[in-house]
């Protein structure tokens, strides 16, 4: 299992060059860039061809790999035209992934509107995903639905991805303490395991989520992919990154 850093909050104020430098220094093997938030890394749809080539070159020259782009695209809307906007935007992100050398794109299902039937909801989220999977065919970019918002529930995440029914669509497991309402985290992880492509951790020191249980499960599942720390913003970001890297190492190998 390889540790990477997500710039969702921790690291949001660092340039790409700084991020590549500090992640390498502290043993992170990958970097996932949160787009659409104006973060300093500058990996955004608005980047020019030349800038994309520079981003690709910066990763190619680094020991740190490009773990992915995390966008805000979400397919929760009951109005088809709003979903269409999101799907088209996600396609632009897929193109961008190809250009900068990112192997994965994170998208959201997000929140089910109260007035929408669950079956219908999962069907249209799945249809959006399927369209993205078809668009990404031949591109080597995987599109992963994050277990975020209402999709922390396994039946939502699995339901939408099964509705998509496309090998280019996977699940990003999100270490959400709310899962425990429905049973041990192992039950959620087992349910999504066939589609598991990526993981987001949060505050590793927070006992509300049983990270050691997660690590044991992942070892048993034979998961050898990336895991990304999405820790909260800090005024002492480099220090927090350093301690998290060490904490991950101790927790993972001793769980």
């Amino acid at each position, binding site marked *: 299992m390889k540790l990477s850093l997500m710039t969702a909050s921790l690291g949001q104020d660092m340039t790409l060059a700084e991020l590549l430098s500090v992640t390498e220094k502290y043993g992170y093997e990958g970097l996932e860039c949160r787009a659409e938030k104006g973060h300093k890394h500058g990996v955004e749809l608005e980047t020019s061809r030349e800038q994309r080539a520079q981003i690709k070159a910066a990763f190619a020259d680094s020991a740190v790999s490009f773990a992915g782009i995390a966008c805000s695209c979400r397919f929760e809307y009951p109005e088809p035209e709003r979903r269409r906007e999101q799907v088209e935007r996600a396609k632009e992100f897929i193109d961008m992934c190809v250009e900068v050398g990112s192997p994965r794109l994170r998208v959201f299902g997000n929140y089910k509107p109260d007035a929408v039937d669950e079956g219908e909801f999962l069907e249209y989220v799945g249809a959006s995903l399927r369209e993205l999977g078809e668009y990404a065919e031949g591109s080597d970019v995987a599109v992963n639905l994050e277990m975020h918002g209402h999709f922390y529930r396994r039946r939502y995440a699995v339901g939408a991805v099964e509705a998509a029914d496309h090998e280019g669509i996977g699940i990003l497991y999100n270490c959400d303490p709310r899962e425990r309402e429905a049973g041990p985290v192992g039950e959620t992880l087992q349910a999504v395991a066939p589609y598991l492509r990526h993981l987001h951790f949060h505050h590793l*020191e927070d006992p509300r989520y049983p990270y050691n249980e997660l690590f044991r499960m992942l070892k048993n599942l034979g998961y050898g992919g990336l895991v990304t720390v999405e820790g909260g913003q800090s005024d002492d970001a480099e220090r*927090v990154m350093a301690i998290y890297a060490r*904490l991950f190492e101790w927790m993972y190998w001793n769980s």
Partner: protein
Amino acid sequence: MKLSLLTFQLGKDFELDELLALCAKYGYKGVECRAQLDHKHGLELETTADQRATIKAKFDDSPVDLAGISTSCRFESLDAAERQEHVDTTKKFIDLAADVGAPRVRVFGNAFPEGSNKDQVVENVGNCLREIGQYAEDSGVDCNLEMHGDFYRWQYTLRAVEIADHERIGIVYNCDSRETKWSPISEFLTPVAPYLRHIHLHNIEDSKYPYGELFRILKNMGYHEFASLEAGGSADAERVMGIYARLFEWMYWNS
């Protein structure tokens, strides 16, 4: 072994109430107050009898213990009058410790003055410590020489404490990465073990010092006293304290 926090840098800007609350929240069993640097905790020689009683009451009401008082007193000077000043200041700290309920005071041998005879300096330090030990005899307060400055070398610290030859005089082991250029850290710890009363950890994520090895050795020795985290300052001190406590737990129990 019990984790405590030394306010040398991390925690220096917290008032005593905040320190006690944060230490209790994150699982630190003690606070060691660094004096003579105007830290916000306010535990100083200048505190009045009333203030001392208040400090003692706060610790009595808290699950967090007062692990000790760290002073700047040092006995390296070749000038007998200057050494006596430091001895007299240390005696005042012994009184303060007795008043506030601190079981130990930390002092330095420190650095050999340029051109000095090392044996003479070590003997001077030992004599100062003996005088302090005699003063502290019935106080319930130990005075511990830290393996700091040139006294990181176990030979100097051990010799000074042997010269002092008083049961109130012990050693603070200081996790100094310079040790590793000489030999395994066990060769430093084993000779000082009979006098080991306290430990200062630093940035435990830093691989320059083998903390895993330290924890194994201490467990084998049956050391159950405090180890104070004396980590670098942070603009995000509470967060860093929280993550360090978790990292310590994983490192200690899995070493």
